[in-house]
């Protein structure tokens, strides 16, 4: 197989990175601040969409300054422990490179720690990973770059990052900038491609340089010259049209391979794709036995997805993919294929997004009250919240007491009582809470609180 052009033509210097000039300047300035000891800002967060040069800039920086690179990305085994072990200890210590050279920080030779895909670093439940990153930055004596597509997700997990790290935004690239890169690659590879064709590839990529280079390599493969029609095979990236075509091909597939390949080029995560397929099954299959088989296959796929997520073992995605594509498509044994012109947006996602507000408010209540009830927030949400809410609507005294003991805000109280947050009931309750709490404060000042443990003399 040929070498991946995105790797082959990765910039070897920041000066070769295309576009995003201000981001590059910011990275340079930060890197210069390391010349004289450890600066105040030890980490940068490079944020922006995929394929626009974040990782390339990070690696180029290391080339420029002859820094060593320790890179952790999503394919590595990443949990709190391995982050501590590799990034944590690595960032406090001087360096041996993979070639066996010793880099002394006295002579300004640093080790750049790159945490790629930092927003995907940890599973849903793993708060340890976020903490490990924050601790690493706090303790670090080496430069750290966090790379993230979703800055919001990253800082939600680890809000301290907002203070500890400066963020640098990368923007989508202008098609004309992409054309420049594509042209130099084509020249290097001895392929003649007209500017027009390159322009087509570039604009098709929607600002994603990596996608554009991949597309170019895919079409060029084994040819020395390219015509405008050749770009037709590209299809539009990232479009609903592409999705519905892929689903159509998948449901029409006769073999496992065909079904799998049909969805291969979609920019969809497997769990999202699964929802799309789920939504389409009833319109694609009418025979009850076909339907049963299809949903059976889908449910198996769902088990893999769930396990992949829970265990952070994303290798299982490939099984999930096979089950949801081939497993579903080949479930059609007897029924004829109806004509389906359009695939609907997954209703599951619509419902979930509509319920976002309610879920957020329940979560807020659960997280505040669960510790008070000595239970997990999930248990609280499932088994206590509905009854408690019922009780509270009838028992105002209890509501006030709960308000005093915990950190519930007006929004939480209104949600517990099923009333508007600016209603008079909430205001009255708030006033009572303040009255009681206020008294407490005064009491506390007058009589210094006794220490929690009792002294032996009292017995």
């Amino acid at each position, binding site marked *: 197989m040929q070498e991946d052009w995105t790797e082959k033509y990765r910039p070897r210097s920041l000066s070769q990175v295309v576009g995003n000039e201000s981001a590059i300047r910011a990275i340079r300035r930060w890197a210069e601040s390391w010349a004289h000891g450890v600066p105040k800002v030890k980490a940068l967060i490079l944020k922006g969409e995929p394929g626009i040069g974040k990782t390339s800039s990070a690696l180029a920086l290391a080339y420029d300054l002859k820094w060593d690179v320790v890179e952790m990305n999503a394919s590595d085994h990443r949990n709190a422990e391995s982050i501590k072990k*590799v990034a944590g*200890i*690595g960032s406090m*210590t001087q*360096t041996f490179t993979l070639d*066996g050279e010793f880099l002394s*920080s006295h002579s300004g030779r640093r080790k750049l720690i790159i945490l790629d895909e930092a927003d995907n670093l940890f599973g849903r439940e793993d708060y340890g990973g976020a903490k490990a990153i924050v601790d690493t930055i706090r303790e670090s004596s080496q430069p750290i770059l966090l790379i993230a597509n979703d800055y919001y997700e990253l800082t939600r997990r680890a809000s301290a990052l907002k203070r500890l790290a400066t963020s640098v935004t990368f923007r989508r690239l202008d098609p004309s900038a992409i054309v420049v890169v594509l042209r130099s690659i084509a020249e290097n590879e001895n392929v003649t491609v007209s500017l027009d064709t390159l322009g087509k590839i570039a604009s098709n990529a929607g600002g994603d340089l990596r996608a554009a280079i991949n597309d170019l390599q895919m079409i060029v493969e084994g040819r020395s010259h390219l015509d405008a029609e050749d770009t037709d095979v590209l299809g539009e990236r990232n479009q609903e049209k592409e999705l519905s075509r892929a689903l159509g091909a998948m449901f029409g597939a006769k073999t496992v391979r065909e079904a799998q390949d049909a969805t291969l080029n979609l920019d969809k995560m497997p769990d999202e794709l699964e929802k799309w397929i789920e939504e389409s099954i009833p319109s694609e299959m009418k025979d009850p036995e076909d339907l049963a088989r299809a949903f059976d296959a889908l449910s198996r796929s769902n088990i893999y997805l769930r396990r992949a997520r829970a265990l952070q073992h994303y290798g299982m995605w490939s099984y999930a993919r096979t089950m949801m594509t081939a497993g579903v498509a080949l479930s059609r044994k007897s029924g004829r294929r109806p004509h389906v012109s359009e695939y609907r947006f997954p209703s599951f996602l619509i419902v979930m997004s509509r319920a976002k507000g309610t879920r957020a408010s329940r979560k807020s209540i659960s997280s505040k009250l669960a510790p008070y009830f000595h239970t997990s927030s999930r248990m609280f949400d499932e088994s206590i919240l509905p009854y408690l809410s019922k009780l509270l609507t009838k028992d105002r005294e209890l509501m006030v007491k709960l308000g005093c003991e915990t950190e519930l805000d007006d929004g939480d109280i209104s949600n517990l009582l099923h009333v508007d947050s600016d209603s008079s009931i909430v205001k009255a309750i708030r006033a009572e809470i303040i009255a009681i709490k206020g008294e407490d404060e005064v009491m506390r000042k007058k009589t210094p609180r006794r220490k929690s443990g009792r002294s032996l003399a009292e017995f």
Partner: protein
Amino acid sequence: MFQAKARAEVLKEVVNVVSSLVDEAKFSVNADGLTLRAVDPAHIAMVDLSLGKDAFEEFKADETEIGIDIDKLAQFLKLAKSDDIVDLKHDEDKRRLNIVVGDITRRMSLIDTTGMSDPKVPNLKLDAIITIKGEDLIHGIRASETVSDHIALIANPEGFEMSCEGDMDQVHFRKSKKDLVSLESPSSVRSLFPLEYFSNMLKAVSSGTHVVLHLGNDFPVKMEFTIAGGKGAVRYLLAPRIESGD
């Protein structure tokens, strides 16, 4: 080609040496024995191990490279008693290492060694050379382990010292020159190291072995000792911790 028989004990020692730093390793084999060099994932330590062919009961090899998942090998070796003879055979076509202990045969798939680094051992100027009994060094480390996560190694013409200062407690371990096997330290030197790594490196030191430490001022430490009853040699290098201000 690589075909050998060795006592399980010897292989366990090798695994101990390597596993403290890396999970996967590339062993280079030739007619004289095997060698391994690796840098750990955090790029702060390096191991250089060589095991002569006389450490094996039987040894036949041409020049080749074998990539091994150290965890797998360690797990398998747990099944063997120290005195058991382990039979190793490299199956080049199937990229496997076939290991036999008693009635058990394990066909272990190997790791692709392309892209695995080939570090050179750097030439570092380290003035102080301390030779100390392995037990003494381990003793000193055990005392420090709960106190802090880094440890200072200090040498001067009079003796050798390890000092560990945590937020609350301090531990000092001192050996004067006469209590060391030998000491050569023209001046006073001090470097600070991550304790966990240092202590892991000592895991493979068997009792009765002498450990040689080469030390400099805020510079890496080189630790040398022998394994397999003197038929194998281990060299570790550990980078110093960055002390604030650099």
